[in-house]
C-alpha cells in the first residue's frame, strides 16, 4: 500500500460555511493563527456548493445550523452524494449544541468530526490535524470503496484489518461490507460476530449481522435483532431502512408506513420525505403523502442533481386529493424543468390528463392521452409511472389501456404485495374498479401457479422442464423479480452441468444484466453474480 504524504496544515484550503458573518470571521482568524491562509468563505449552502465545484477544497468546516433553507447535514449529503468532494476530504461540523451527535448519527452521511462552539485555536488545530491524518491514512481504502470494485475493496480492507491500531476496525468494517457485496454472507456474518465480540454495542456490526442473516434466508431473526437495535440506538436510521425492506417484502403496509414515518422524522431530508410520500401513496394515505411530498419538493430545491420524482408524486397525490388545479400547475412546471427526460414528459402529460378529467375537461384529457399513447411503448417507466399512466387512461375513458397497464403491473409484481395493492387502488373510483380487482387477483394466481410448477420441476430434478416453465413465466411477466432471478439461477445451474455452445451462460448473463438494472443490491443478485464470475469470469 503506497504511503500518502499528507499536505502540511498550512497548505490546506479550508471551506468555512456559517450563516453568521461574525462567526465566519472568528473561524477565519483562528485558521490564520494556525498558519492556514487559504480560506474560502460561504454564507449558505448555495455558496458552499459553488465553492466546492470551483475550488480544490481540502477540509470543510461547516456550521450545522445555516439559518433558512438547507441545513449543514443536507449540505453534507449534497456534497457527498453529488461527489463534489473526494471521500478523503474531512467534513467537520461546528455546532452550538453539544449533543448534536445524536442528530448527526442519524444522517445518511456522517461527518468526520464536530467541534462544539466556542472552541480554542488549539482544539481546532488538533481536529484539523488528526482528522486529516486519519483520512489520509485511510485514503487507499476510501478510494477503493468509492470505486465499488468489491474484490479490490476486500484486498485493501484486509491489509487494514491486519493492523493493530484503530484503523484496523475500519478495515474489518469495510472487509465485512465487501464480503456482503460479493455474496459471501457466511464469512461476513462471522466477521460481524467477531466485531461484536469486541464490543456488543457497535451499531454498524449489529446492522451488518442482521443483514447477513437476512441474506441467508433468516428474515425473522434479522427482524428481531433490528427491532432491538432500534430500541438501543433510536437514532440509527440505517437499522430502520433494513427493517422497512423486510416489512415491504412481507407486504405489511402499516409497519412499512410507520417505519417510513420514523425515518423521515429522524433524517428529514428530501430522500426520506420522498420515500415516506411514496409509501403513503402506495398504501392510500393521501393526506400524509401530500404533506411529505411537499416537504420533499421544498428540500430537493437545493439538490445538486435534481430529479422529477418529488414533483411527479406530489402531483399524483394532489390529483388523488382533489386539488386538480394545483396538480396541473405542478405537472406543467415539472415538464418545463426536465425538458429532455422523455419519461418525465410522458408522466406530466398523464398527470395533466388526470387533472383535466377531474376538472371536467374531458376533451383536453383525451387529447393528452392520444398524444402520450403514441410514445408510451418507447419509454421505459417504473411501476409507479405505469400506475400513473393507468389512472390517466381510466380517468379519460380509455379503459382498455388502463386495465392493460394495471394487469402488467400486477403480473410483474405478484411477489410484492404492496405493489399489488397499489395496482388495485389505481382503478379505485373508476367504472372498471371491480373488473380490475378481479384481474389483478387472477394475474397473481396465474403467476403463483406457474412458480409452483417451476418449484415442482426443480424438486423433481427436471431441469429442462423447470427452464421451460421459467421461460414461459418470463414471457408472461418480463419484469418480475422472482421469475428473473429463478430463471437466471436455473441457467447458471444448466451452464454448470453442460453448456457446450454457451447458450445457458449467455442467457444467464443477459438475465443478470437485467437484474443488475432492477435491484443490484439484492442478496440473490449478488449470489448469482458471484456464481457467474466464479464459473465464467467477468460479466
Amino acid at each position: 500500500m503506497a504511503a500518502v504524504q499528507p499536505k502540511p496544515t498550512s497548505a490546506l484550503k479550508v471551506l468555512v460555511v456559517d450563516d453568521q458573518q461574525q462567526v465566519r470571521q472568528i473561524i477565519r482568524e483562528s485558521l490564520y493563527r494556525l498558519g492556514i491562509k487559504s480560506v474560502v468563505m460561504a454564507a449558505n449552502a448555495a455558496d458552499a456548493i459553488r465553492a466546492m465545484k470551483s475550488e480544490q477544497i481540502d477540509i470543510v468546516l461547516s456550521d450545522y445550523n445555516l439559518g433558512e433553507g438547507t441545513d449543514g447535514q443536507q449540505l453534507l449529503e449534497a456534497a457527498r452524494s453529488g461527489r463534489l468532494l473526494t471521500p478523503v476530504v474531512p467534513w467537520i461540523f461546528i455546532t452550538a449544541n453539544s449533543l448534536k451527535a445524536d442528530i448527526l448519527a442519524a444522517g445518511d452521511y456522517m461527518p468526520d468530526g464536530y467541534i462544539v462552539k466556542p472552541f480554542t485555536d488549539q482544539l481546532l488545530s488538533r481536529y484539523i490535524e488528526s482528522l486529516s491524518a486519519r483520512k489520509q491514512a485511510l485514503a487507499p481504502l476510501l478510494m477503493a470503496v468509492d470505486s465499488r470494485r468489491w474484490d479490490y475493496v476486500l484486498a485493501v480492507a484486509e491489509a487494514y484489518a491486519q493492523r493493530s491500531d484503530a484503523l484496523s476496525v475500519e478495515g474489518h468494517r469495510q472487509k465485512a461490507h465487501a464480503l456482503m457485496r460479493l455474496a459471501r454472507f457466511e464469512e461476513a456474518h462471522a466477521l460481524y460476530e467477531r466485531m461484536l465480540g469486541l464490543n456488543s454495542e457497535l451499531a454498524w456490526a449489529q446492522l451488518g449481522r442482521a443483514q447477513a442473516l437476512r441474506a441467508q434466508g433468516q428474515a425473522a431473526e434479522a427482524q428481531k435483532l433490528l427491532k432491538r437495535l432500534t430500541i438501543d440506538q433510536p437514532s440509527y436510521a440505517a437499522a430502520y431502512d433494513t427493517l422497512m425492506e423486510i416489512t415491504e417484502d412481507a407486504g405489511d403496509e402499516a409497519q412499512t408506513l410507520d417505519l417510513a414515518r420514523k425515518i423521515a422524522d429522524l433524517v428529514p431530508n428530501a430522500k426520506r420525505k420522498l420515500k415516506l410520500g411514496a409509501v403513503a401513496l402506495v398504501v392510500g394515505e393521501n393526506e400524509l403523502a401530500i404533506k411529505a411530498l411537499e416537504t420533499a419538493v421544498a428540500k430537493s430545491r437545493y439538490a445538486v442533481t435534481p430529479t422529477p420524482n418529488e414533483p411527479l408524486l406530489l402531483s399524483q397525490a394532489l390529483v388523488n386529493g382533489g386539488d386538480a388545479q394545483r396538480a396541473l400547475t405542478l405537472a406543467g412546471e415539472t415538464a418545463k424543468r426536465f425538458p429532455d427526460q422523455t419519461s418525465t414528459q410522458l408522466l406530466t402529460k398523464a398527470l395533466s390528463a388526470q387533472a383535466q378529467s377531474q376538472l371536467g375537461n374531458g376533451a383536453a384529457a383525451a387529447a393528452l392521452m392520444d398524444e402520450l399513447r403514441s410514445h408510451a411503448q418507447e419509454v421505459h417507466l417504473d411501476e409507479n409511472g405505469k400506475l400513473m399512466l393507468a389512472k390517466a387512461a381510466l380517468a379519460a375513458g380509455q379503459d382498455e389501456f388502463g386495465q392493460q397497464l394495471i394487469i402488467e403491473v400486477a403480473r410483474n409484481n405478484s411477489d410484492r404485495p404492496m405493489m399489488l395493492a397499489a395496482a388495485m387502488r389505481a382503478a379505485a373510483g373508476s367504472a372498471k374498479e371491480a373488473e380490475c380487482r378481479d384481474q389483478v387477483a387472477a394475474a397473481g394466481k396465474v403467476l403463483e401457479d406457474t412458480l409452483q410448477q417451476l418449484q415442482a420441476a426443480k424438486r423433481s430434478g427436471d431441469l429442462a422442464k423447470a427452464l421451460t416453465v421459467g421461460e414461459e413465466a418470463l414471457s408472461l411477466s418480463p419484469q418480475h423479480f422472482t421469475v428473473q432471478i429463478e430463471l437466471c439461477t436455473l441457467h447458471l445451474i444448466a451452464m454448470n452441468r453442460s453448456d457446450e455452445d454457451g447458450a445457458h451462460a449467455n442467457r444467464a448473463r443477459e438475465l443478470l444484466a437485467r437484474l443488475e438494472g432492477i435491484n443490484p443490491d439484492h442478496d440473490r443478485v449478488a449470489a448469482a453474480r458471484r456464481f457467474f464470475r466464479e464459473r465464467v469470469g467477468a460479466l
Partner: protein
Amino acid sequence: MADAPQLAAQLDAAVIHDLKNRLAILAGELARLNELDLPPEARRHALAAQEQADAVTHKLVAYLTLRRAAAPDGLRANTQEDTPALLLDELQAEALLLAGGRVEVLVDAAGAPDFWFYDRHLVLLALDSALYNALRFARSRITLRASTTAGGICFSIRDDGPGVQATPDASSTGVGLRVCEAVAAAHRNRGIPGHCTLRSERDGGAVFELHLP
C-alpha cells in the same frame, strides 16, 4: 400546530442556539483581546472574563447533557473505535489552557489500549467535567491517565488537592459528577454498564475514574 411542550422545546432550542453562538463570539473577542499588549491589570480582567465565558459554556453543556439523560430516550452512547492516547492529548491541551500555568498537567497513556470503543464526544464531556473539578482543588499537579482494566478501559484524573472528604462543597452543585454518571451509564458492553468513582487517595489528593466496559 405544535403543542405547548413542543413549543417550549423549540423555544429552548432557539434560545440555547443563540446563547451558544453569542458565547462563541464573546470567547472569540476575549481571545483577541488577550492577544493585545494589555496593561497587567487589564490582562487580569480579560483573562478572568475569558474564564467566566468558558465556565458558563461548560455549565450550559452539563445542563443540556443532564436534561437529555432525563428524557425518555435517555442518553445513548454512539460507540465507535477511538484512540485513548489522543483523547488524553486533547484533554491535556484544554487543561493546560484552563490552568493558565498554575498547575502542571501530566499524561500517562502507557497502559492504555491502542484503541477502544466508546462515544468520544460523551467521554470528553465527562472528563471535561471532572477536569474542571480537579482544577479547582489541585495544588500543583493533575495527572490524566488511561489504562486497560479487566473489563475494559479506565480513564482517570488525579489531583494533589485536599481530597474528597476535605473538599469544600459550598459552591458545587454536583452537576459535574452527575454528568459523569450519566455518561458512564450510557456506555454498555454485553450488558455491563460503565461506572465512575470519585475518592481520596491515601497519599493525598482526589482521583476520579471513569470505567468503560
